[in-house]
């Protein structure tokens, strides 16, 4: 195997249980996003655009769709003779096997995979964030600081800081303290879950962690605190730009809506930093004479006869005459018949909404809940749906 300077390990095994019915059939990284993509496209495209061409994808929860979606990685130009993308599910060994018990354990069980490339560095990524980032700059920073561990951090609003792993740093960006979800945060620099380790150090700590029966085998909870306790120099790499953890229905909906604003720091239309994905085979979409589409994203193959406003519509969706779609996300292959009304709704793949159906939660003061309609469901005519379907 050809030697590689840096190998990326992409954690894609999480269930994402807070996404409810959206992750009922697929792992969180495979959830559809942004009118065309799946969440993992962002991380894989970042790898390709940063010149990292060896990526191990660690899968565990409902991996069928994710595995077939990634395939041999050709959509991200990661089908290579040397390196490329590798899907790494848990496996059976001589003395039995086990599931990945945590993020660190998932990588520990694949030490042999990493070793074969003899890398100097390992880049640990998670497959459930929406962002565009040049990892090669972070790697340069890591080399320049001549450090063993670099953690990417981003400033978050103070009031949300208690949801993240928070770093305190000194003037040289060296990390002094790391606290997971602090009650009283001392800083607003959140860990993005992106780490660069010098491989010999990580290798040693993974093996020690594996032997520790008290450990939860997690990077944020075990590996990083232990490195700090043992007085290693860890550096923070401040990232400026759009970054969103789409872990909840609300943040998923918000991240989709962020794409509609021209002022948003996340622009999909960026020839220098394309987001690659498996492209649908669909003709251009058709807008009929009665169609009205404002402030929306619209995928290929759609046929629109009704009205669409502030919404993200995936490919191959039919929107009938008189239908009114507002502030909603409609996934691939959905059929929306005449006079259906959607407001702040997420409609799962291939669902069929028969005519005159209304999907919207009752408006409470200035807040309205999001209604999620699960994939593949058929809703009879004249239905009124006010809350998310239950798994």
């Amino acid at each position: 195997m050809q030697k590689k300077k840096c190998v990326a390990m992409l954690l894609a095994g999480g269930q994402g249980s807070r996404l409810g019915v959206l992750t009922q059939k697929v792992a969180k990284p495979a959830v559809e996003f942004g009118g065309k993509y799946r969440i993992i496209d962002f991380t894989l495209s970042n790898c390709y655009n940063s010149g990292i061409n060896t990526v191990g994808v660690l899968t565990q929860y409902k991996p069928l769709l994710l595995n077939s979606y990634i395939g041999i990685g050709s959509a991200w130009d990661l089908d290579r003779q040397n390196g490329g993308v590798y899907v790494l599910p848990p496996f059976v060994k001589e003395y039995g096997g086990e599931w990945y018990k945590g993020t660190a354990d998932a990588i520990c069980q694949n030490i042999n995979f990493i070793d074969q490339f003899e890398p100097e560095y390992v880049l640990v990524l998670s497959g459930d964030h929406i962002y565009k980032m040049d990892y090669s700059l972070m790697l340069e920073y890591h080399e320049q600081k001549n450090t063993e561990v670099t953690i990417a951090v981003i400033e978050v609003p103070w009031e949300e800081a208690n949801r993240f792993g928070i770093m305190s740093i000194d003037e040289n960006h060296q990390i002094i303290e790391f606290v997971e979800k602090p009650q009283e945060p001392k800083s607003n620099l959140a860990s993005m879950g992106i780490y660069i380790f010098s491989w010999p150090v990580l290798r040693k700590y993974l093996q020690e962690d594996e032997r520790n029966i008290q450990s939860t085998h997690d990077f944020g909870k075990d590996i990083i605190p232990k490195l700090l306790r043992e007085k290693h120099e860890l550096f923070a790499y401040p990232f400026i730009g759009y970054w969103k953890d789409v872990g909840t229905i609300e943040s998923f909906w918000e991240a989709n809506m962020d794409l509609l604003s021209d002022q948003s720091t996340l622009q999909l239309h960026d020839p220098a930093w394309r987001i690659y994905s498996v492209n649908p085979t669909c003709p251009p979409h058709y807008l009929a004479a009665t169609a009205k589409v404002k402030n929306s994203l619209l995928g290929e193959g759609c046929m629109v006869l009704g009205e669409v406003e502030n919404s993200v519509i995936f490919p191959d969706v039919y929107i009938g005459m008189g239908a009114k779609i507002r502030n909603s996300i409609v996934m691939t292959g959905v059929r929306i018949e005449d006079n259906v009304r959607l407001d702040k709704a997420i409609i799962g793949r291939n669902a069929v909404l028969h005519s005159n159906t209304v999907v919207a939660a009752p408006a409470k003061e200035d807040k309205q809940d999001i209604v999620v309609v699960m994939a593949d469901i058929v809703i009879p005519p004249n239905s009124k749906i006010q809350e998310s379907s239950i798994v």
Partner: protein
Amino acid sequence: MEMMGIINLSESDDYLGNLTDERPFAAVPFAGRYRMIDFTLSNMVNSGVTNVGIFIQHKYRSLMDHLRSGKEWDLARKRGGLFFLPPAYSRFPLQIHRGDVDNFYTNLDYISKSPQKYILVSGANILTNLDYREALAAHQGKKADITILYANIQNPKQDCRGSYILETDHEERINNLVEYAGQESSQKMCIEMFIMDKKMLLQLVNNCIAYGDYDFIKHCIIKNCNKLKIYGYCHQGYVARIASLQSYFQHSMSLLKPEIWKELFFKSGLIYTKVKDEPPAKYTHRAEVTNSLVASGCHIAGKVENSILFRGVKVQEGAWIKNSIIMQKGEIGSQVILENVICDKDVHISDGKHLKGEENYPLVIKKGWVI
């Protein structure tokens, strides 16, 4: 599949004016994201044909860039797949290229070494969605020597110019093919797709070369009408033959009818093309788009009606585009008015310009121009 395909691009391609200045006919963009050849190629693939040779003749850089390994059509294969068959080489210095039989003759090795029993020879100027398996079954059922696919054209004035018309008996046996001579009644137009036994093709080509003949349709087919059992196979459904700039424009616009859009893109299989990884099309608050086809990567802030926008087109606020075709990466400035205009790729219309063609004579802006 026991049939291989040949896409014969040796036909003249100067009748599309500026659109074919720098590209062969087969690479002319069509329908918002495709090139002409995508339709024939996808039909072949969807019918199970996995060994396709393409006779390229001239200006083929853009065609090769479009097709590359054939991966998007699932034709990057270890066995069979896509073959580019370069132009006929001359055996004597300065011998001119006389006709497409030369191309067959030059590539006789490829054809005879392919393992398939039957061969399908097709052009690339017909837009349709069809399943060749049905035509092959008809060919076998009739024990024909050659089967010629045709379509009943109700409005021959527009589509048949320069095409061949079949003269058949009541059993669909073809007695003769004649060039279209301006009739107004419905015509059986040859859609330049031929199915025959590969051995038959090899024999026809060798005979032609021996007699110094060079035109595939005239000399291989028409000359043998009386000697061979040649049958017609009627292809029902939407057929568009691109024979002039006018018919290019009109057939493009006919895609704005949903029933034609559905039939051409979804009927018996999907149409594949080179992917561009463009994001979904974005409409701003000011966008007003009606009765139009819009491809991915577009950013629309203006008014668009009865038009086709290819991938990555930008329309600024205040622009008004009607009955027009804007090809890939076109940029239309604010307060621009376009009517009956075809903008080739990478055209930039600066703010405030008004350009107008006529319905039967669209104004074509050449690739890469800034106006």
